[in-house]
């Protein structure tokens, strides 16, 4: 069987800790009435609470699983357990002929992939397609303009009334306006409004953040009304802020493509809601020196599009357009030798983050690498002490304690996301022994 997996790599696929735990409990072969595999897939029938066992199968090339159990989690505990069994048994699962249900699924996956490929290759009338696209785009701009006009007046009204009167009624109003932005096909504005609402709801400690967020929203409204005067890069920034990114195909076809040894600096999975997980993977190119963000969403039972468990990859990345492109899409990847984190001075890290935000104040976060920083708990707040001053940390209490324990009060190298106010630490390394590392564990809901 073709793919070598470790238990840790499998557990990294788990949607939550409960699934990982449940899967570990299903690794006894007595739970399985059938187990088998070949070069492309592994499969099994797991005893469940129903009369019929669940049929579970994993496509080893994509590490995608399918199961007949009713779980909405993906991969479900049966899929994970099957992969754990595969990872734990050095000799692999017993080789066997594919049952019909496995063959059918693999064939249908192959068929879909081929259809997609053919559809991509199918000749289309470029003029008609361009016209249709333009029409669609114009329609969406119209709805966005209308929504932004409402939002502009609404924000001004909030300031006219004064935010001190914020209460349950206003909370409903804000939520209604966020829903209005979704209707206006500007989900990015809805999200930012929701973030402002969260800041207001947190009390006086975050009121200034809410004011700033409303101010930045007002700049987006201005941008939309003057979009024809904007450069293509600035327009791309604006579209991302509106929640209208460019199509992946257009990005791949674009010119900003870099092939490099990309080091995985850190990654984070955030549960946006019950059914939507967002994954952010931050990369650094050894030769190009560029930073990149792979942004991925898993909706309902869909898995991640790609699998990033190694520390370094030889990969080709195509960057989304923008004044300071960070988000990219990967078109080819293969594991490459591990490498040390880039040497970045504190001044450069701060300068770089300032530069990114100066170019585009609407981006939610940028990567930050600090070579020597000490986690500190001061007056109930978590901070990162550096030679140039301190940065507030944005992290859950349990993660902050764990990071403090890891550092032991000594300076460590920290990679995190700077959101303009606080740093969310994702990974910390011992400066002398980089293999001793701390990483944000599991899913974190945005704080």
């Amino acid at each position, binding site marked *: 069987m073709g793919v070598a997996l470790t238990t840790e790599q499998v557990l990294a696929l788990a949607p939550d800790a409960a699934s990982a735990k449940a899967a570990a409990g299903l690794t006894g072969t007595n739970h399985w009435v059938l187990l088998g595999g070949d070069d492309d897939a592994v499969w099994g029938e797991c005893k469940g609470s129903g009369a019929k066992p669940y049929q579970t199968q994993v496509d080893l090339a994509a590490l995608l699983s399918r199961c007949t159990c009713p779980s909405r989690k993906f991969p479900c505990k049966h899929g994970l357990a099957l992969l754990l069994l595969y990872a734990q048994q050095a000799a692999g699962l017993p080789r066997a002929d594919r049952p019909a249900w496995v063959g059918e699924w693999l064939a249908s996956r192959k068929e879909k992939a081929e259809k997609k490929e053919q559809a991509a290759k199918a000749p289309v009338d470029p003029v008609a397609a361009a016209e249709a696209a333009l029409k669609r785009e114009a329609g969406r701009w119209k709805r966005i303009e209308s929504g932004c006009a409402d939002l502009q007046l609404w924000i001004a009204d909030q300031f006219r009334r004064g935010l001190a009167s914020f209460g349950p009624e206003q909370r409903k109003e804000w939520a209604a306006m966020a829903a209005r932005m979704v209707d206006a096909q500007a989900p990015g504005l809805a999200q930012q409004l929701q973030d402002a609402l969260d800041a207001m709801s947190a009390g006086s400690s975050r009121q200034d953040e809410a004011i700033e967020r409303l101010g930045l929203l*007002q700049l987006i409204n201005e941008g939309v009304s003057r979009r024809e005067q904007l450069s293509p890069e600035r327009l791309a920034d604006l579209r991302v802020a509106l929640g209208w990114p460019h199509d992946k195909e257009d990005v791949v076809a674009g010119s900003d493509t870099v092939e490099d040894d990309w080091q995985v600096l850190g990654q984070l999975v955030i549960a946006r809601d019950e059914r939507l997980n967002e994954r952010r993977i931050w990369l650094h190119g050894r030769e190009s020196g560029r930073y990149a963000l792979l942004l991925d969403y898993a909706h309902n039972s869909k898995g991640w599009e790609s699998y990033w468990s190694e520390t370094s990859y030889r990969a080709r990345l195509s960057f989304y357009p923008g004044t300071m492109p960070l988000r990219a899409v990967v078109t080819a990847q293969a594991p490459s030798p591990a490498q040390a984190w880039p040497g970045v001075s504190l001044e450069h890290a701060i300068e770089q983050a300032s530069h990114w935000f100066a170019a585009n104040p609407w981006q939610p976060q940028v990567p930050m690498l600090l070579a020597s920083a000490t986690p500190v708990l001061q007056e109930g707040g978590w901070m990162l002490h550096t030679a140039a001053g301190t940065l507030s940390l944005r992290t859950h209490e349990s993660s902050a304690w764990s990071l403090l324990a890891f550092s032991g009060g000594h300076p460590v190298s920290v990679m995190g996301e700077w959101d303009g106010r606080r740093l969310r630490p994702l990974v910390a390394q011992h400066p002398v022994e980089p293999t001793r590392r701390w990483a944000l564990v599991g899913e974190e809901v945005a704080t």
Partner: protein
Amino acid sequence: MSAPWMKQALVGVDRAPSFQVDSEVAGLLDAVLAQSDDPALAFSRAAGIMTACRLAAVTLDPAVTPPVPAVGDAGELTQEHPWFPLLGPSFVEGPVRLQHEICERVAAIRACLPAPLLPVALDAGKRSQTLRTALLAAIGQRGRWLAQFNSAWQFAVDGAGEVDASNDRRLWDEGSLAQRVDYLRRQRAIDAAQARDLLQAQFGELPAKERLELVAVLAQELGKADETLLASLLLKDRSRDVRQLAARLLAQLPQSAHAQQLVAWLQPLLAQKRGLLGRSWQCDAPTQADPAWASAAIDATRPQHDSLGERAWWLYQLVRQVPLSWWTSHTGMNAAELLAWAAKGDWKAALYRGWHERVDAADRDWIEAMLASRDREFGYEMSGLLAMLPMAAREKHWPRTLDQLSKDGTLVEIVASCALGETLSADFSRALLADLHTCVENDRLRYDFGLRAQLPELAALMHPDALAEWRSPSLRGDETPAQAESIREFERVAAVRRTLHAHHARPPILIDPIPEPR
């Protein structure tokens, strides 16, 4: 966002805003403000500009003074160690017995817990006081360093646990109550008189709870020399609990005035009578309260809701102080005979309650007799009696099937009577493990909530040799979620323990301390 901006945003913007800002930005703001007649709209645009300017210049807050860093630990378990993946979940999910074993195993290989897991381990110590001693031996210097930052982890702050002799006295002067008790115990073992003097010197400053716990230490190496202190406590201490404890300890010193006084009170109540079948003992209760009882921690007034009558109450208080050995030597009856004799008399309740309170680990024959009697008085606290017996003796009192154990509630007793760190014998464990297979197959586990609830504890109590032979039961597939969960929990704990003990023969896996960066 500066204060004037905040103020306007909060109270409401009803006129054109004007702010002192940097000259270059001021021009931009003026231009923006001039674009609109609506002051609130202009304000919101200006707020956006100010925010964009702030974001474009990452500003760090003033430096703070970082804490003194921790000293490096030589034996921190690394991520490659086979125990590493088990530790975090075990400290979150328990049971405490398993956490205790982890700490002991880690300390046994002269290692300490991985630093990132210390918070969950310390949280477990916060929840369970009984875990703390073992935990302190496993958290290393890093754990003690970390504990200083969280008020809930003060039990583990530097100075607790492993300290060298030169620091010992500091524990007595500055430590927590548990540390002071521990220190006094150690001193008592080395020099009983010195420990007593140490306690006596500070006695006046201590609150009642501390006095009670510290005086209890005197039971260790109790001797004639302690009589003076105990007698003064019996007479003068403000706390009734302390007075009662002093009385109990004094009663253990046969030559003490208190012990002799008790015997003098009790002896007339026991009389030997001649009957048709020979001589027999008869017990009576005091007929009236003696004012002298007040000096012996005996209350003349019966509590309002006590089940004993007034005379029985007086008798019980005398009985609970007198060592059980006095009864056997005075009457010539052994423990079982005395229990049978008391059961036939009028004062059974008072005698049984008094004896039950008096019994301790040294009275092995009394414990066995009480357990054998199956009397309700002893049935309430079976686990307490069992806990005083060695494990092999305890197991003789337990059925060897889970079915029976669960049916008569003995399973809870087994768990309650085993202290942390104790395990069942390999033989008894094997019998229970074999029976667990039957319980899974015959649906006992499906319907028995009590058995399901105790499974994780049982897994933590099994002898490691027996657990190593454990094979997962074959499931039918129609298990209820609760049933499956209980089996899963049992297997989880069993798997962790098997791993912990699978490596006991290996040499310690340690890593060299990494030089801390400057």
